């Protein structure tokens, strides 16, 4: 404590010595109109686009519309504190956020101010919120996996480092759950995670932070939140601010995973701002640059080549659909920008298939390139089995007695696959565990297990292998492949376990 006191004393001494310092000319203007969080300002001749404005009393603004006589600005902060006739100063700073390691484990607002009551964030650098995405030359193709720990995703919709994979579905179909499980699964790994909450209920954000904390996942995670009660401009900059924080790590050659939860509300916030700034409205009253709003954000996710440090940003944007309508304006926009989507369906969710991934509509355009060899070897038939099953399942509702043996086998395989891919929330599996389960399915070693007991079988099998054959798991984890030897050992181990399964 004494040393800290000394530090502060010397700091104040230096500040007193330098008191006054240089004077600079600043641009000033006068608020001529204010309302709904948007101000029209006269003056501010030299102001630049996206420059921060100082309304005094710690209220900042963002210059957005630059016209010949009037500057349209969004107020970041309490809009009621700005009055007509008030003086506004330009700051010369294009909007920026604090970045760096000190943010990890913290909950901050889009301007980097702490919200978790753990005191100030001791960051040293800042980064511009808006930045042009890395160009073609500095990128390399996506070929390393992000292990989500979710069997259905890792086996059928693999996500690579640097990819943009959309999570789309109706309300309460488990969209956030998939993102959270992915974050939790990075515990002890090398991925830094950023969760950006846009327009979410504060209660939900608190719940998310609570679950991450309970799972020990806050140690590698930054939460950036602009809640439903925050002003539209604050919500608008939140994803860009989160992305700027991620870019700092990417520039250091690290890998980052960023979740934007969700971009539907981000589009709403931008629509509100645009309408209040009197920009022309287009389809569904969204402004003309609504596509660019999301494309410039998601383009900033990239995998840099070795010459640029080899870092990456993987983005998991979330879109909420209304009544399953994926062909609405914002969903189609974001679908076309991203490298694939995980489509969650309420019908599946309600019939107990969780995660409620619709295998037919979900796709990852990066595909097998981002899968470990081990998963690729065991997941091959899964997608096919499920796709065929969905077709037959409707047909087989009327009874299976009259069906031929091949069809019945196909149905059984599909049922088994569906059952195996069910997974509870907050229990992501390690790569080796996933491989063991999928191996058992793929090799037909689970065909004699009753459907109702598949879950219990999995749990006990994993516990047995973890207890009696940790060497197999270690080999898979290390080599990320299934050699003939591992294959033989694993088959034997599973066959040894089966008689002991109590059901």
């Amino acid at each position, binding site marked *: 404590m004494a040393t800290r006191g000394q530090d502060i004393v010397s*700091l104040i001494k230096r500040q007193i010595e330098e008191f006054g310092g240089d004077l600079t*000319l600043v641009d000033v203007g006068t608020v001529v109109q204010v309302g709904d969080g948007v101000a029209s300002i006269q003056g501010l001749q030299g102001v630049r686009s996206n420059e921060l404005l100082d309304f005094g009393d710690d209220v900042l603004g963002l210059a957005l519309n630059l016209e010949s006589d009037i500057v349209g600005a969004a107020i970041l902060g309490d809009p009621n504190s700005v009055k007509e006739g008030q003086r506004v100063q330009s700051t010369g700073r294009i909007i920026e956020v604090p970045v760096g390691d000190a943010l990890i484990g913290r909950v901050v607002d889009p301007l980097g101010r702490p919200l978790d009551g753990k005191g100030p*964030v001791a960051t040293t650098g800042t980064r511009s919120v808006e930045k042009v995405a890395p160009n073609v030359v500095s990128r390399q193709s996506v070929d390393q996996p992000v292990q989500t720990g979710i069997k259905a995703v890792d086996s059928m919709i693999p996500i690579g480092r640097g990819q943009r994979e959309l999570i789309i579905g109706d309300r309460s179909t488990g969209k956030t759950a998939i993102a959270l499980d992915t974050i939790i699964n990075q515990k002890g790994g090398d991925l830094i995670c950023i969760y950006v909450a846009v327009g979410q209920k504060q209660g939900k954000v608190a719940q998310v932070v609570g679950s991450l904390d309970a799972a020990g996942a806050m140690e590698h995670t930054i939460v950036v939140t602009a809640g439903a009660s925050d002003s539209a401009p604050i919500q608008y900059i939140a994803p860009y601010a989160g992305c700027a924080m991620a870019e700092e790590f990417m520039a250091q050659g690290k890998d980052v995973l960023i979740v934007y939860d969700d971009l539907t509300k981000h589009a709403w916030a931008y629509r509100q701002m645009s309408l209040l700034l009197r920009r022309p409205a287009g389809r569904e009253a969204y402004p003309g640059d609504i596509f660019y709003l999301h494309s410039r954000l998601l383009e900033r996710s990239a995998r840099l080549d070795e010459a640029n440090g080899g870092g990456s940003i993987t983005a998991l944007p979330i879109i909420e659909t209304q009544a399953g309508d994926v062909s609405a304006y914002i969903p189609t926009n974001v679908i076309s920008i991203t490298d694939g989507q995980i489509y969650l369906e309420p019908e599946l969710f309600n019939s107990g298939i969780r995660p409620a991934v619709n295998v037919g509509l979900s796709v990852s355009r990066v595909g097998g390139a981002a899968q470990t060899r081990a998963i690729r070897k065991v997941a091959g038939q899964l997608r096919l089995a499920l796709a065929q099953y969905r077709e037959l399942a409707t047909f087989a509702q009327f009874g299976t007695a009259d069906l031929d043996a091949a069809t019945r086998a196909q149905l059984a395989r599909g049922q088994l696959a569906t059952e195996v891919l069910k997974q509870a929330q907050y229990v992501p599996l390690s790569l080796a565990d996933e491989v063991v389960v999928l191996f058992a399915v793929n090799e037909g070693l689970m065909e004699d297990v009753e459907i109702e007991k598949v879950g219990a079988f999995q749990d006990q099998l994993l516990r047995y292998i973890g207890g009696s054959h940790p060497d197999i798991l270690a080999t898979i984890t290390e080599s990320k492949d299934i050699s003939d030897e591992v294959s033989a050992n694993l088959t034997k181990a599973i066959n040894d376990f089966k008689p002991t399964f109590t059901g």
Partner: protein
Amino acid sequence: MAQQLSGKRYAQAIFDLALENNQVEQWGEDLAVVGEAFEDADFAALMKHADMSSVAKLAATATVLAGVNAMVRNLVDLLVSKNSVDSIVGVYTGYIELLDNHLGRQRVEVTTAVPLENAEADRINSFVAGLVRREVVLTTNVDESIIGGLVIQIGDRLLDGSTKARLDGLRNRLHTEIAASA
């Protein structure tokens, strides 16, 4: 906002007319009289009042603005009959801006905590004139809340050398640096 913008358009029009007549400064003085009259809230309200006929309104302006150039009065009558009374003050401020530009003048507002002495005002005048390379028209204000030093406003630009601003800056820097060292 719209009123102020349209004021600028009218100002440009009357200024062009004044230029053609070579009477920019005289008309400026006339517009000052107009501006003063319409800054009076009661008079402006009367001119906007719906119960007053436009003939009566024009008669009123004729009395109030008796000594004013006919062209300037025409402008006022035009705005009054078009129900644009609110933009008249804007016309005056717009005209002053155009006139200053035309004559190479720069209006500068200096705020100090204590009243300036003449010698000091002259020094500030020559300092700012050197800065903007134009003839400077100085207005001085006294505002005790800035504690000391002075604030110079040149058009849309501000040179804040007040003790208050320096203390605010010191407070902000200490906040951020102590936060960063914690």
